[in-house]
């Protein structure tokens, strides 16, 4: 992970909104994947209600998470796999380091895992002198660049092909090209050697099947299969909420996931991994570790207003339709989880106060809610986070953010509670606005906190008479006045 923080949201966003190349790239995700997702969901029985059906499945699982977790752990252990429940991200990192030390691991290959970014795994491995190589093409690119991923599914979406070409020319010593197939072939060659000689593979997981005792990993590139097959040790990092109970759950969850994430009916590979290789298997890892990570999720679970956010299957679908994300890119959020889901999940795990920009920096347009394959209501939760910032909430360790705003809204609601006061205020404001600079009648500079509007837009003046006053006058003077 990198020194990202949500505190820089406005600053980073202000830069990103001028990046027309970023917008072009993200526009492709929007047009190819985001805007078509709902049509693809409707292909799945039960058709229009697939999102609700998927929500019901996730809900049943999360509402009984203890049973599902215990069953999953028991079944994996029965096959000789090791299961560790990590309280915090640091505990999970420490566990991975211990496993690596025990096996004298010198090289780790990684399959894409947002959770590994969340817990800052890579820097810890590198500090321990372990070479850590990302193998997902997008993650590999951002790793070579020394940057953080900018999208949950497509980490390097913000680069152009010529930027990747220049990067590979510099770091891999390959002749410059901007042709994606040639660039992919370069990465294929460079990473093959790493994947075949690594001592340990660490991957994420997309879901699990508790009943059968398997972790399920969905991918297209084949690097995750390599990571989970060729090294001696395979470690899976999985959030405690990202599991399922039965294969029937997988039927709808996986089909919705691939449609939402990449507009695909099915991904190239779906791997069911349930433990280390059996003695009669000629290949596969000799040790298998499943690290189930809490890191704040059980706290979210305990709050009925926010529990729903744990249903998220990390498809990135909300990113692909969010006009704010599509303009400001993933780095503005200062968190491995960006876009609408990041705007809710990050404050709840990192601290609502520290992440106030994430709670307030979107328009609540509702596009994310419409596209979420598990029917999450992110706007409702963002609105609730704003309420906690406004009035504080000791349960979530957040204090009221702004006394001035509280007073202002208090005063405003007091005035709006009496038409007479409101009319009086309008009268005063009509006088006051004469002091403000205008052009063609509209105000060009507003004072104080409203000044943000007039940076680039004019603001309408108050009319000489309100609708209420005109209505009253009309009725007094007769219809045709």
């Amino acid at each position: 992970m990198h020194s990202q923080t949500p505190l820089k949201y406005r600053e980073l966003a202000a830069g990103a909104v001028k990046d027309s190349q970023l917008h072009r790239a993200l526009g492709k995700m929007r047009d190819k994947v985001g805007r078509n997702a709902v049509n693809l969901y409707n292909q799945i029985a039960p058709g229009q209600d697939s999102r609700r059906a998927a929500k019901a499945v996730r809900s049943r699982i999360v509402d009984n998470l203890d049973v599902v977790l215990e069953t999953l752990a028991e079944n994996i252990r029965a096959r000789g796999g090791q299961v560790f429940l990590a309280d915090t991200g640091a505990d999970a990192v420490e566990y991975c380091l211990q496993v690596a030390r025990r096996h004298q691991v010198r090289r780790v290959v990684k399959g894409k895992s947002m959770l590994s970014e969340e817990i800052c795994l890579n820097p810890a491995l590198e500090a321990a002198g372990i070479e850590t190589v990302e193998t997902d093409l997008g993650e590999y690119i951002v790793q070579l660049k020394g940057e953080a991923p900018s999208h949950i599914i497509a980490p390097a979406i913000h680069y152009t092909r010529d930027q990747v070409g220049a990067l590979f020319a510099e770091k891999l010593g390959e002749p410059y090209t901007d042709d994606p197939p040639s660039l992919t072939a370069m990465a294929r060659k460079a990473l093959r050697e790493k994947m075949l000689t690594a001592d340990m593979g660490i991957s994420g997981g997309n879901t699990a099947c508790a009943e059968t005792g398997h972790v399920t990993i969905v991918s297209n590139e084949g690097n995750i299969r390599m990571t989970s097959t060729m090294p001696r040790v395979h470690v899976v990092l999985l959030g405690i909420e990202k599991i399922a109970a039965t294969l029937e759950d997988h039927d709808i969850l996986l089909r919705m996931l691939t449609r939402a994430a990449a507009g695909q009916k099915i991904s190239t590979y779906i791997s069911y991994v349930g433990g280390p290789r059996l003695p009669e298997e000629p290949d596969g890892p000799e040790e298998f570790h499943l690290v189930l990570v809490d890191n704040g999720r059980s706290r979210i679970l305990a709050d009925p207003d926010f529990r729903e956010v744990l249903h998220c299957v990390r498809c990135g679908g909300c990113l692909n339709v969010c006009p704010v994300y599509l303009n400001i890119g993933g780095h503005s959020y200062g968190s491995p989880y960006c876009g609408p889901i990041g705007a809710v999940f990050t404050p709840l795990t990192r601290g609502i106060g520290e992440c106030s920009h994430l709670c307030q920096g979107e328009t609540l347009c509702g596009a994310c809610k419409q596209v979420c394959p598990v029917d999450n209501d992110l706007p409702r939760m963002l609105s609730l986070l704003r309420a906690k910032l406004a009035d504080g909430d000791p349960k979530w360790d957040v204090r009221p953010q702004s006394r001035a705003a509280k007073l202002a809204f208090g005063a405003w609601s007091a005035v709006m509670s009496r038409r007479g006061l409101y009319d009086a205020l309008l009268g005063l404001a009509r006088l006051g606005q004469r002091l403000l600079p205008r052009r063609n009648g509209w105000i060009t500079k507003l004072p104080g906190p409203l000044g943000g509007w007039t940076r680039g837009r004019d603001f309408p003046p108050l009319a000489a008479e309100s609708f209420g006053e005109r209505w009253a006058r009309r009725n007094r003077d007769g219809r045709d006045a």
Partner: protein
Amino acid sequence: MNKPQRVTLFMQCIVDSCFPQVGEAMVAVLERQGLTLEYPADQTCCGQPAFNAGYRNEAARLARRFLDVFEDAECIVCPSGSCVHMVRHHYRELFAKEPRLLARAERVGARTFEFTEFLVDVLGVTDVGASWHGDVTYHDSCHLLRGLGVKDQPRALLAGVRGLNLIEMTRSDECCGFGGTFSAKYPEISEALLETKLSNIQATGVGAVVGCDMGCLMHMQGMIRRRELPITVHHIAEILAGRQ
């Protein structure tokens, strides 16, 4: 609901204070339909600005007042989808733990309609006898479209306007970047969304944009004026009241 005996006007505070002509246009259209109108003079605001910013207690105070003011209305019509969405959806959140207020909010909410929704779904009317000669494009406001599900009604009404030609823009349903206080707190992002919206409008080649929510429309008009762009902005009520 059948054709109501009387229609109670709910004026969005932005319309009341800055764009009263929009309210009057709505009145003209409704009167042409032969409806009896009433306007509770002491109405002020549904509380949405406070709710949107997270100040729920302050919003609830105005919400309770709204219920008092509009309790006895048979049918409430408002020229703004976001206000109607506030009443129909967010009042239920505000009063989730207060059964009596919740019940009142649900009763009032069930009788509250956005203007185009009222004309088409309640009155069954798509031709209000309007004429307006020119090409326009239409912007789908977020709360109206996604919150209330109103998408076809404004288009049906525009189709009934003599001389008007509607040309759809790319991604008419994409947010214009207003978002309430967001527009002042995050101006860079707000403007970026607005620029995309205006550029999509201009790409249609039309010179006029129509919408159903003055929040969005004043946002658009703000940048149009600042940059002197050749686009005129119209609330659908003004088009429907038109007799050009």
